[in-house]
């Protein structure tokens, strides 16, 4: 096996192996566990940087293993895959750091970190899947490995959330399975190919392909939390904050959204999907989700719940971008994959900090917390502004391209959706910001776990990750046009997906 074949596998192994080792470690071997975690995360990042460089230079990284005749497990590090892989690996690194700080002293850490690593492995698999089958395999693995994280607290509420989570995701997985099998039956191996691979089928398959598309999107839409398949997400926020961060920003919802991207671009091919009239319903569905999620978020007092509804709304930007035919919207949607991740993880980190440091869970308890925890709150503010879509933050870039894409595709009503979403985002984030910065504190904190020490508002490990992601939120927006930005990378992908389109 050549190096180019092994590298994708190594990316998987670099989190799988630490995960398995951590399972077997006894609870009190804290140092060793952290070491394995961090070594794995760092190693993965290094590997990914190496691959990134290679992909830029035009190298191909493909690993192929035949499971059954006509059924291959394929890992392929193409440009789109690397977008998601890099995001996940980078955020995993931070989340691990954060989780080490967050889970300090809580029980069952070995189990937690073990599943945590498995979850990331599954995400990597989803990202690097080279065909629909591989994608499905890891999509389901992701469901399984996140369940223990969702129910980690073991409370009745967590259990209920876990149950709902499972019933949604497994149901979605079943639909996805049917669609996948059907597609394999029609077209043989469904490799992810730029520009799609189904256009070669004759027109007599149109009806079937439409049904399959519906099945696939319904399956993926569960994880991507498209309304009305979103019910699990607000409940799943009972999980510990690092898990929520991972769930909402990196792994689960993104896997769904990423799957939609793959199906539309690399399975059907965007032009073919357009010719089958599949994109419009998807766009409508995404738009409804965007508005509905934001509306629901308005009514939540629980901070994490509000953030969860916000995720529902924001993730659908990706689906929306995919569903609008044209390179600009593609860029907008795909870059939001990264941008939403960074912004939302910041917000969840901050929510976790409030809960862990001061015992604040509800928005109504947040009065004046900006004075007590200025750094965390600053990061939160940046995340929130980014969500609203203000420049120079990441969210603005996504919205800009989405809007331009909508115009390009002669769908100006999308602008209205974006507009409404921005306004609603402002409506549910700005009151929070007002409370934290401008409302004076009148009573004691609900439960101050981590006292103020030497002007440090909370533990280092809790503080650094949100700050890093907040800075990243600013940087990816501010330097969006530079060569190293996600935007530029996404443009590269869009170039390849729209073969006719020359920049």
């Amino acid at each position, binding site marked *: 096996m050549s190096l180019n074949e092994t590298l994708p596998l190594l990316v998987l192994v670099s989190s799988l192996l630490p995960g398995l080792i951590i399972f077997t470690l006894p609870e009190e071997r804290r140092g060793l566990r952290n070491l394995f975690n961090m070594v794995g995360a760092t190693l993965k990042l290094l590997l990914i940087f190496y691959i990134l460089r290679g992909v830029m230079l035009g190298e191909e990284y493909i690993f192929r293993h035949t499971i059954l005749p006509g059924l291959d497990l394929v890992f392929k590090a193409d440009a789109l895959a690397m977008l998601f892989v890099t995001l996940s690996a980078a955020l995993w690194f931070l989340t691990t750091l954060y989780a080490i700080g967050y889970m300090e002293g809580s029980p069952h850490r070995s189990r937690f970190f073990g599943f945590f690593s498995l979850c990331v492995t599954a995400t990597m698999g989803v990202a690097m899947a080279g065909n629909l089958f591989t994608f499905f395999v890891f999509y389901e693995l992701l469901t399984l490995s996140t369940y223990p994280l969702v129910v980690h607290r073991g409370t009745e509420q967590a259990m209920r959330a876990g149950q709902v989570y499972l019933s949604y995701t497994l149901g979605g997985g079943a639909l996805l399975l049917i669609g996948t099998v059907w597609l394999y039956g029609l077209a043989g191996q469904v490799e992810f190919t730029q520009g799609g691979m189904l256009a070669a089928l004759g027109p007599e398959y149109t009806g079937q392909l439409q049904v399959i598309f519906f099945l696939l999107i319904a399956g993926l839409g569960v994880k991507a939390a498209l309304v009305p398949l979103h019910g699990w997400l607000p409940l799943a926020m009972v999980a510990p904050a690092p898990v929520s961060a991972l769930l909402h920003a990196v792994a689960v919802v993104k896997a769904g959204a990423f799957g939609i991207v793959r199906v539309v671009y690399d399975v059907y091919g965007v032009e073919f999907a357009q010719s089958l009239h599949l994109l419009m319903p998807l766009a409508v569905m995404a738009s409804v989700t965007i508005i509905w999620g934001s509306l629901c978020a308005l009514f939540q007092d629980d901070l994490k719940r509000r953030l969860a509804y916000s995720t529902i709304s924001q993730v659908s930007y990706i689906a929306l971008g995919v569903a609008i035919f044209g390179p600009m919207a593609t860029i907008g949607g795909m870059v939001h994959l990264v941008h939403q991740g960074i912004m939302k993880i910041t917000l969840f980190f901050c929510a976790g900090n409030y809960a862990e440091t001061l015992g604040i869970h509800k928005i109504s308890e947040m009065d004046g917390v900006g004075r007590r925890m200025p750094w965390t709150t600053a990061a939160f503010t940046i995340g929130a502004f980014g969500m609203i879509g203000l420049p120079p933050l990441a969210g603005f870039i996504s919205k800009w391209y989405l809007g331009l894409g909508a115009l390009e595709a002669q769908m*100006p009503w999308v602008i209205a959706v974006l507009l409404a979403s921005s306004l609603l985002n402002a409506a549910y984030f700005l009151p929070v910001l007002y409370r934290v910065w401008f409302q004076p504190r009148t009573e004691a904190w609900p439960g101050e776990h981590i006292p103020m020490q030497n002007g440090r508002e909370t533990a280092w490990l809790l503080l650094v990750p949100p700050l890093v992601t907040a800075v990243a939120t600013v940087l990816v927006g501010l330097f969006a046009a530079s060569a190293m930005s996600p935007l530029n990378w996404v443009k590269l992908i869009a170039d390849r997906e729209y073969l006719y389109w020359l920049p």
Partner: protein
Amino acid sequence: MNLSIVLILPLLLAGLVLLPATRRMGMLLAPWAALPGLAFSLVAPDAYTLDIPWLLLGSRFGLDETGRLFLFFTALLWLTAGLYAHSYLAKDPRRHIFIAFFLATLSGNLGVCLAMDAASFYLTFAVMTFAAYGLVVHEGDAEARRAGRVYLIMAVLGEALLIAGLLLLAGAAQTHFLPEMARAAAMEMPNLAYALLFLGFGVKAGVPLLHMWLPLAHPVAPTPASAVLSGAMIKAGLLGWLRFLPLGEATVPALGAVILGLGLFAAFFGVVAGLVQRQPKTLLAYSSISQMGLMTLAVGAGLLLPKAWSLLLPAIGLYSLHHGLAKGALFLGVGVAQRFGRNGWVMAGLLLPALALAGAPFTSGALAKTQLKAALAGLPTPWPELLAWTLPLAAVGTGMLMVRFLLLTPSGGKQDDGIGLLPPWLVVLTAVAALAWMQADDSTVVAVLSGSGLVSAAWPMLVVALLAYAAWWRGWRGPAIPPGDVLVWLERAAATLRRVSLPYSFRSKRVFPAALVYISRICHLEKILCNWPLVGGLWLFVLVALACALLLVAHSPTV
């Protein structure tokens, strides 16, 4: 001098001010933060541009004639306001927070003047808008919070309209760089985009119905903040129009007429609503609405009459310079009067910008109004006829407003700690007196100094004096319009609505509980299935069925 210093220095200083370790140094340097901007406006080469391809969507900053003028008076106002604030807030324990917001707003406002592409314009505009929220709510009392809330809602609405308008414009123009963008878009005539942009920037510029935040927010902010809000930031909206509307490129009749009409309405509405105010700063805010109305009117005229734009643009520039400085001087003066009482010299200091606003002879106001009138001359009917009698009437109104302002000026207790307020105020006063003369066209200067010019500037003043005397004599105070006018009625309506509609609660409901019970009964079937005779019977039945199924095919004729 690098342009980035102009924008980044204030932000850096804001950081220094926020960090406790460097706060002292930051506070010391903060008042001077606008200085590089001011200097840059003076020394920058002609048609300066700076492309930063890696920034945002690819950015361009630059300085054309309009930008230079706006940058100049904006920076000047911020500089004086900064120095003023240093002394004004000397006793405020939370002044570092104010200064931080002040510096961020400053950076945004200067950036607006320099931005030459849609994205960075939007960026700097947003920075300015949102940072200014901190200025509005700084006092922290209920009034400030209400004003802040209204400000924020309107600002967010404005930002949303803006981004939609900019997107549509960029979509039509296929570029987001100025000035190509406005020019290219003018070919396409995206009317919706223009309407959205007008409204979006109109929030900042106080276009009627979008003005509601203005009379609430400008007065409650600390005085130096009010000065820049009303003097400089309100002009950012105007600059937005100048940058993105197809002024001088194409005729947009419907929108032009609407804008013109709205501007005219604002000019009078501001006067009427301002006259009945009880607070001097609220009154000044309404005066700003009125004055911005005149500039709005000019923009509308530009849309109606592209070929007059070459005259209108300098006129608008001059008017903004004049109004910015005069309004700034008035607001700062209010603060001075609070500290020093209604001294003779204080009143004299206030009289100068007041006269200027009213357009008295020899003042910047006379210059600005004359040049504006000249530029508006070529409008199609019925506008010239309408404007011929409305503009002097507006001048009379402004004069009345100023008289009322002078009467309302607070007579606060004497405090000696305000000495630091004076130098910056004096600088602005000087600027009010002098700068417009340098900016105005030669022909305008000649016209103002000519006899007919003096007369046309002076007779409204006489009317004002007569009316004021009459009103004083009759002791007339007028009906009360609450600050925020329309908003107050809207709020009442909303409260009623809230009472009527029940809050919608998101509650999960147990669906089909009966079905669950029913399902559990099915389990009973398993017990019945355990009966040997039943299973045996089933077995025999399946046996027969299978045998039949096998026989059917084995012995059917086809096989």
